[in-house]
């Protein structure tokens, strides 16, 4: 069975996700981006705290397999410090390789991209 085999990084990100959960509303205005495809076993929500066109703080919530959760954690971590403009161009290709995501699961990562696009959109509209 393909399941059950995860590289160390996936395990680490899965077991100790520094960016899972929410952002304290007191910190400022929090924008969200969400995407779901339950049939692909993926449901992702990103939350971001932005200032001067920059992501100061990012968090995620997700329902899915370990690879998806790990990818979300990694993405949220990488969001911090990036410019809002970069969000749209955020690519998951290298991330998929880094986490050794099996081919049959790659479709799930698209849900992350969709959530990022939604996040970018809501940042603009909230700008």
């Amino acid at each position, binding site marked *: *069975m*393909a*399941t*059950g085999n*995860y590289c160390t990084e996936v*395990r680490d990100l*899965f077991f100790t*996700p520094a960016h*899972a*959960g929410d952002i304290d509303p007191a910190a400022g205005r929090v924008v969200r981006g*969400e995407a*779901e495809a*339950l*049939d692909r*076993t993926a*449901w*992702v*929500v990103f939350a971001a705290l932005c200032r001067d066109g920059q992501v100061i703080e990012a968090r995620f*919530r*997700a*329902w*899915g*397999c*370990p690879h998806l*959760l790990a990818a979300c954690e990694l993405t949220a971590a990488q969001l911090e410090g990036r410019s809002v403009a970069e969000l749209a161009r955020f690519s998951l290709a290298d991330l998929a390789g880094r986490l050794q995501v099996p081919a049959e699961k790659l479709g799930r990562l698209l849900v992350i991209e969709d959530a990022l696009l939604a996040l970018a959109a809501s940042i603009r509209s909230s700008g």
Partner: protein
Amino acid sequence: MSAPVYLDYAASWPVDPRVAETMAQALTEPDLQANPSSSHPGGRRAALAIEQARRAVAALVGADPARLLLTSGATESNNLALLGVARGRRDRGRHVITSRGEHRAVIDACRQLEKEGFEVTWLKPVRAGCVDPGQVLEALRKDTLLVSVMHANNETGALCDLAPIGAACRARGTLLHVDAAQGAGKLPLDVEALGVDLLAFTAHKLGGPKGIGALACSVRALTALQPLQFGGGQEQGLRSGTSATHQILGFGMAAELALQHMHAEAERLTALRERLWHRLQAAEGVWRNSPAQDCLPGTLNLGFEGVEGESLMLAIQSGVWASSGSACASASAEPSYVLRAMGLNDLACQASLRLSLGRWTDAAQVDRAAAVIVEAVTRLRERAPAGVRSRIR
């Protein structure tokens, strides 16, 4: 950190130390090393030891040792029963009845029979993977050669009411095959009383070694079988291949132990299973796929709202070893027909877990396992988008 709690007995039991001891002896005792087919004293001693073990294995299911064939496991036993009878009796009829809730060994053997020109009626299980006798009776036809139903479902533990099916098949002269891999050695089984013509079971699901199983046959069934493999003529020419003395002796010891402790263990495990179920309520949003009644003592298949199965498996891994509820231990992972047939959607199947208990499970393990699972479920839900519990159920 203490060792993970093993709750995957339905996939395979740890070998009982007394069985391992018996096998270690058989592997070293000079008198048991010869080929049991050899005519010198070494061969004859091995053959005698095998016949003694065969009696113990047969006694477990009320079978006549003279009609109990030793195989490499329940997969082979099921295939020998289905392919063997159908191929051997194709002149008598081309119709076979089974259910979509069966183990892959039965389902894929029946698919092969369809390729060979047989007509298979696929019954839809109504009770957690098992069929009702009425369904079988309705499906029986004049040209029905063989009926194949399972004694206990491997995913949910649900038990099938075999007696009425056996009676109906006997009345019509149709052969009845039963896959008893999960239930043999755990609950009383009597092939004569139940009217079962072919009963398949395996040692590794009752404390014996992997790679050895049996097919108990009625007189009629025995004469109907075409072998799957041909050669030296062992097992009455129906299953050629040098008999594996140490494997058979291990099976025999496992059968003796299972018979000895059957009733006490059934009670003990039923109590532990319910204890586990109640401890798990702490997680809230837990549903039970296994029936509360007419179920194997050691099997508990359940699901958690808002949880993804693969992540749950990984989250509990360091504390509990179990199987996903939707894929019994098999080299390939298909979504479970059984759970879907119970009305669960794919997401709920996905969220299901099969916890199975056995001889070495105790209350402390059950409590530790429950704590680990509840903690993992809670953690995963916290990480999930709001409202996940109402969507994934």
